[in-house]
């Protein structure tokens, strides 16, 4: 224990898997050979390897973080691995999502993931849930697992995963990434803080970019997802010091890890002393984002679709199309719009011709929504956000505009 001048009371570490369940497991001769390097370590040994075989781990998202986490957990002999995802493999995934190969483009991510994991280790069971994780299905899916790994890519699902774990009393092995930055922790409300203790509310939509908008170094999820796998193994084995109440920041550019102490918030709405959240809520609403089902319905006053914009450009409407992405993104793909990055808008908005109707766009539509709101506050009367951004334009109007 580090000397911090205070007395740390470390909760006694017991594995998340019932010791009995591990004892009932048998390893075949083939498995013993496969796991021989584990069997040599006393902290794992035969007892630990049987615990791993008895363990059930659910991974949310078969993407950047889910890839290394799933692959290492499969290789380590975790007996049951569940995967939740509903996406298909896209060429832009392959820079970091090692579960999937070039030949898998267009396939369901879960089909591809199942094949990869079974290839790594045929002795394990792989359960797949090809659906969006929602407040309706989360508790049912989570109930059958010992540990949940959060490798999702959006705020609503992160709060959903957290709350479901708190309500069911399961550890949430958390990792998230952006560009060169990674964050890792183990949220276990029975023994420490939860995700809401740390961030009681999400950033407004569009403020903090996703990897699709802001980018991510492909190797970063490899590092962070592997650290998540490490914490899962320790929880199952009941060995070492788990990252409960500790928050790790990784800065890939500096190669710097920082460890920060986290405390449980007594006022936490889900794990505090007087919780107000007793069941799963509407997480899209909580995070201020439109539910995917409602995403098609646009607000005619403030939004415009790419089809509508194309039609209005073609008929010669007097529009000012404003691109609020960064210059390096403009270089990759543009539709000839006036470029003022969102970050420069506060000091450059007077460059915009206020006599025209303004259509603001970015990559997928969230930065431009903020820009449009800003311009309205500055007195611009007719401002519309291009729903789906240049991505939608590339996909539905002009395939010559590169998709990135």
């Amino acid at each position: 224990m580090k000397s911090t001048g205070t007395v740390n009371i470390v909760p006694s570490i017991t594995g998340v898997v019932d010791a009995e369940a591990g004892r009932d497991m048998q390893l075949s001769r083939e498995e013993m050979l496969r796991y021989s390097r584990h069997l040599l370590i006393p902290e794992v040994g035969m007892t630990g390897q049987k615990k791993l075989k008895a363990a059930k781990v659910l991974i949310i998202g078969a993407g950047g973080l889910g890839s290394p986490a799933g692959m290492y957990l499969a290789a380590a002999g975790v007996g049951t691995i569940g995967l939740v995802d509903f996406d298909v493999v896209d060429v832009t995934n392959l820079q970091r999502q090692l579960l999937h190969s070039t030949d898998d483009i267009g396939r369901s991510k879960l089909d591809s993931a199942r094949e990869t994991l079974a290839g790594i280790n045929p002795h394990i069971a792989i359960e797949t849930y090809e659906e969006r994780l929602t407040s309706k299905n989360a508790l049912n899916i989570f109930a059958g697992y010992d540990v949940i790994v959060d490798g999702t890519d959006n705020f609503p699902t992160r709060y959903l995963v957290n709350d479901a774990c708190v309500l069911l009393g399961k550890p949430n092995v958390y990792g998230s990434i952006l560009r060169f930055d990674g964050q890792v922790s183990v949220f276990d409300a029975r023994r420490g803080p939860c995700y809401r203790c740390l961030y009681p509310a999400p950033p407004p939509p569009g403020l903090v970019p996703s990897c699709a908008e802001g980018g991510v170094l492909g190797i970063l999820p490899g590092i962070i997802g592997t650290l998540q796998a490490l914490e899962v193994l320790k929880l199952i084995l009941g060995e070492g010091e788990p990252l409960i109440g500790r928050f790790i920041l990784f800065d890939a550019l500096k190669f710097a890890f920082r460890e920060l102490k986290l405390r449980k918030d007594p006022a936490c709405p889900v794990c505090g002393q007087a919780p107000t959240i007793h069941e799963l809520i509407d997480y899209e609403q909580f995070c201020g984002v439109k539910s995917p089902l409602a995403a098609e319905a646009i607000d005619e006053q403030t939004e415009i679709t790419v089809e509508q914009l194309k039609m209005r450009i073609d008929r010669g409407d007097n529009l000012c199309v404003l691109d609020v992405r960064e210059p390096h993104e403009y270089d990759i793909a543009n539709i000839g719009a006036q470029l003022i990055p969102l970050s420069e808008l506060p000091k450059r908005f007077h460059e915009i011709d206020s006599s025209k109707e303004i259509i603001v766009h970015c990559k997928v539509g969230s930065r431009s929504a903020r820009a449009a709101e800003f311009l309205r506050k500055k007195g611009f009367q007719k401002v519309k956000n291009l729903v789906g951004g240049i991505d939608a334009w590339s996909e539905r109007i002009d395939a010559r505009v590169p998709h990135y």
Partner: protein
Amino acid sequence: MIRVVLPYHLRTLAQSDAEVQIAVAGAVTICSVLDALETHYPMLRGTIRDHVTQQRRPFLRFFACGEDFSLESSDIELPPKIVSGEEPFLIIGAIAGG
């Protein structure tokens, strides 16, 4: 000089590096550090603390020397290593990429 580490979305806004250095006059507290930061980077006003209530935004947290200062009073003095610039004051932001 006080070192302050900013989360990615604030770096873009301030058009700064991940770490910025600022001079703070008088006692070095969360409040005085943030005031000095906002004087240097006026575009950060309202992004770390609410414009009106001056409350920390709930998706950001403050750390100093490994300890969480987010729930502390903004008037308490920060540790000597922050004052001397040996350690940075961290503003950590929620990210959700996976």
